[in-house]
């Protein structure tokens, strides 16, 4: 059990075995509960392997196992396998831990589903865990692309889990379209990279202009997957999926895949300063922009969704500033506290049967455990000193502090204030104040749901102290310090919380709250995209469709038609009578003889 390759393969194979088994064994899947058992067991095995792998990796160092794939002209085009270093080992553990918590939570949360849907849900979850692990362990960009597309597929399947509901089906298609548009960047980046260097390695040396082009294309994919402006619009709609799915895919792991890709491909991005500049600005802008939108949402899940966009903006900005470690650290802590927030929100939704913040209120007394864990997650997200989110956010901001241009730093500080403000707003509206009508019959979640909340609450508080260890794994340098950034950041966080308490606290300040709600401009971006898609894309598609139908298909049909007609024309020659064939043979012989004579 000390072979790192074996452990990594186990973490990869357990979920895929579960997914394939559930795919093939329809009776098990249709009965529901056994499918959940299979899926959770597989995740448990994967988590155990991932945790053991951390210790083995600490003792034995990096490892790599690959096998050739796609041989052409005698040499392999690419390799697939397992790549184990500090980043993949720690990410694997985070993914498996959050996935297991979410799946256990789902066991109770999805309990009212019919058995068939229940089984389908868990088979998708098993497939997701495999896809994510495949991506995380990828030894090169090609396998990463395979994992990347697979998580996109499972995202589509899980957003559209309630496919009978039109809004969910629409949201699934929208997510698929937007991320697919962005994934074209990944695909073309891969092609360009291969044409330029003949390799898919993470650490290829590139000519400067190729480096900028390729990394910009990869960054386009990151913008889509990690929901950065202006491709962020699919993420809020993705909240149509079941809440645990939002916690796992659309908060903790899948959307962070974009950030992880950049962390992984850091040697490529390090060669393209221009791309990093773009990343810095897009990340900073998304952080502020999405935080503004989070202020005005009435749906608790949408607040968290925009908050995810905003936090991913922090990570992208850190990566743009050249610190892969800062982005990765925030990814890790964010995975824990955002999954916790989503699951706690799921617990609330389960209790009051509504997503609307107006239907909640005063849940503090009915659901003390959920309230406690949600508040822990909120404080961590807001960046209150001592919680995990503080350390990682502080590191991101400190990375930006020394730069000549102070604007991104200032923007992210503003976003930190807004983050604390909107989290304070949600906490006040959902858990404090007067008990709402719908909340009267609310009750604390069962153990299957509260257990994962408690498990996730621990790293949401304490993961910040793992910074030194994580820095050691990634070969970066990390130390906590007292300086301008931590002081301003904690001031911002506390000020944001206090401001929201003042507005949404005991005496709800209706005029300010109302003014904030009127700021809702989220749909403007949506409308711009809709116009672009409808006018531009459908127009081009129409022309291409005509060309395909009448020119390409026309050529094919013409060939077939001509062959049929020519056959019909000469078929009369075949009479089936022996004598006619003899005549033909004799005439042929005479003809040959004549030709010989002449």
């Amino acid at each position, binding site marked *: 059990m000390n072979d790192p390759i074996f452990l990594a393969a186990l973490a990869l194979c357990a979920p895929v075995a579960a997914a394939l088994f559930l795919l093939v064994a329809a009776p098990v899947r249709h009965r529901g509960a056994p499918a959940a058992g299979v899926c959770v067991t597989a995740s448990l095995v994967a988590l155990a392997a991932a945790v053991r792998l951390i210790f083995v990796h600490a003792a034995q160092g990096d490892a790599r196992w690959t096998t050739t794939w796609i041989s052409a002209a005698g040499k392999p085009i690419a390799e697939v396998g397992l790549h184990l270093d500090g980043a993949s080992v720690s990410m694997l553990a985070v993914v498996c831990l959050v996935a297991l918590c979410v799946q256990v939570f789902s066991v109770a949360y999805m309990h009212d589903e019919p058995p068939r849907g229940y089984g389908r849900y868990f088979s998708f979850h098993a497939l997701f865990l495999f896809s994510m692990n495949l991506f995380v362990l990828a030894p090169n960009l090609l396998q990463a692309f395979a994992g990347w597309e697979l998580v996109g597929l499972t995202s589509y399947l899980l957003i559209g889990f309630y496919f009978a509901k039109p809004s969910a089906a629409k949201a699934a298609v929208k997510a698929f379209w937007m991320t697919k548009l962005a994934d074209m960047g990944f695909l073309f980046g891969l092609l360009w990279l291969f044409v330029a260097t003949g390799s898919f390695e993470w650490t290829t040396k590139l000519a400067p202009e190729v480096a900028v082009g390729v990394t910009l294309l990869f960054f386009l994919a990151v913008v889509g997957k990690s929901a950065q402006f202006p491709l962020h619009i699919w993420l809020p709609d993705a909240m149509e999926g079941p809440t645990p799915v939002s916690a796992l895919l659309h908060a903790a792991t899948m959307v962070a895949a974009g950030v992880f890709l950049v962390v992984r491909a850091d040697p490529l991005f390090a060669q393209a300063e221009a791309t990093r500049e773009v990343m810095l600005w897009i990340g900073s802008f998304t952080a502020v922009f999405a935080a503004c939108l989070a202020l005005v949402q009435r749906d608790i899940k949408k607040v968290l969704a925009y908050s995810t966009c905003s936090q991913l903006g922090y990570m992208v900005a850190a990566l743009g500033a050249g610190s892969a470690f800062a982005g990765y650290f925030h990814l890790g802590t964010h995975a824990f506290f955002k999954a916790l927030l989503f699951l706690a929100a799921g617990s609330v939704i389960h209790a009051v049967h509504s997503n609307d913040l107006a239907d909640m209120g005063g849940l503090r007394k009915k659901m003390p455990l959920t309230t406690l864990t949600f508040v822990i997650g909120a404080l961590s997200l807001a960046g209150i000193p001592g919680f995990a989110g503080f350390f990682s956010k502080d590191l991101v901001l400190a990375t930006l502090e020394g730069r000549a241009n102070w604007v991104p730093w200032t923007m992210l500080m503003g976003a930190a204030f807004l983050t604390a403000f909107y989290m304070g707003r949600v906490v006040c509206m959902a858990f404090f104040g007067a008990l709402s009508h719908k909340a009267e019959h609310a009750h604390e979640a069962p153990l299957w749901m509260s257990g994962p909340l408690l498990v996730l609450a621990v790293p949401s508080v304490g993961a910040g102290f793992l910074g030194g260890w994580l820095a050691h794994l990634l070969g970066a340098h990390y130390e906590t310090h007292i300086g301008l950034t931590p002081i301003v950041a904690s001031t911002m966080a506390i000020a944001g919380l206090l401001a929201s308490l003042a507005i949404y606290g005991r005496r709800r300040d209706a005029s300010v709250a109302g003014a904030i709600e009127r700021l809702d401009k989220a749909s403007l971006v949506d409308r711009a995209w809709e116009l672009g898609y409808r006018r531009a894309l459908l127009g081009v598609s129409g022309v291409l469709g005509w060309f395909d139908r009448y020119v390409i298909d026309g050529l094919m049909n013409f060939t077939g038609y001509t062959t049929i007609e020519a056959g019909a024309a000469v078929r009369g020659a075949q009479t089936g009578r*022996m004598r006619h064939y003899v005549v033909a043979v004799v005439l042929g012989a005479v003809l040959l003889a004549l030709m010989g004579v002449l």
Partner: protein
Amino acid sequence: MTLVQCLLLASALFSVGVYGLITRRQAVAMLLSIELMVNAANLALVAFAKYAGAPTQPLVLFTLAITVAEVAVGLALVMLLYRRYDDTLLDAASETKG
């Protein structure tokens, strides 16, 4: 007889065979026509050996042996034709019509 006379005789014999093959509808008569054509060829081969000194006489023996085999197969085909169509007219078997 000269070589030319022999070859003329062989050609005439061959032409009669071809004519029979084309005009006869009875399978047995068509087989006989084929025999005529083969024997015309044999005659030509023997004539070449006798008047031109060509080493073609062994070929005639081969041709005879092959002809025997061909007749055996041909008659078997005629039997099958009769069983299947109750007829020995070859025109009945025209399934290969296009």
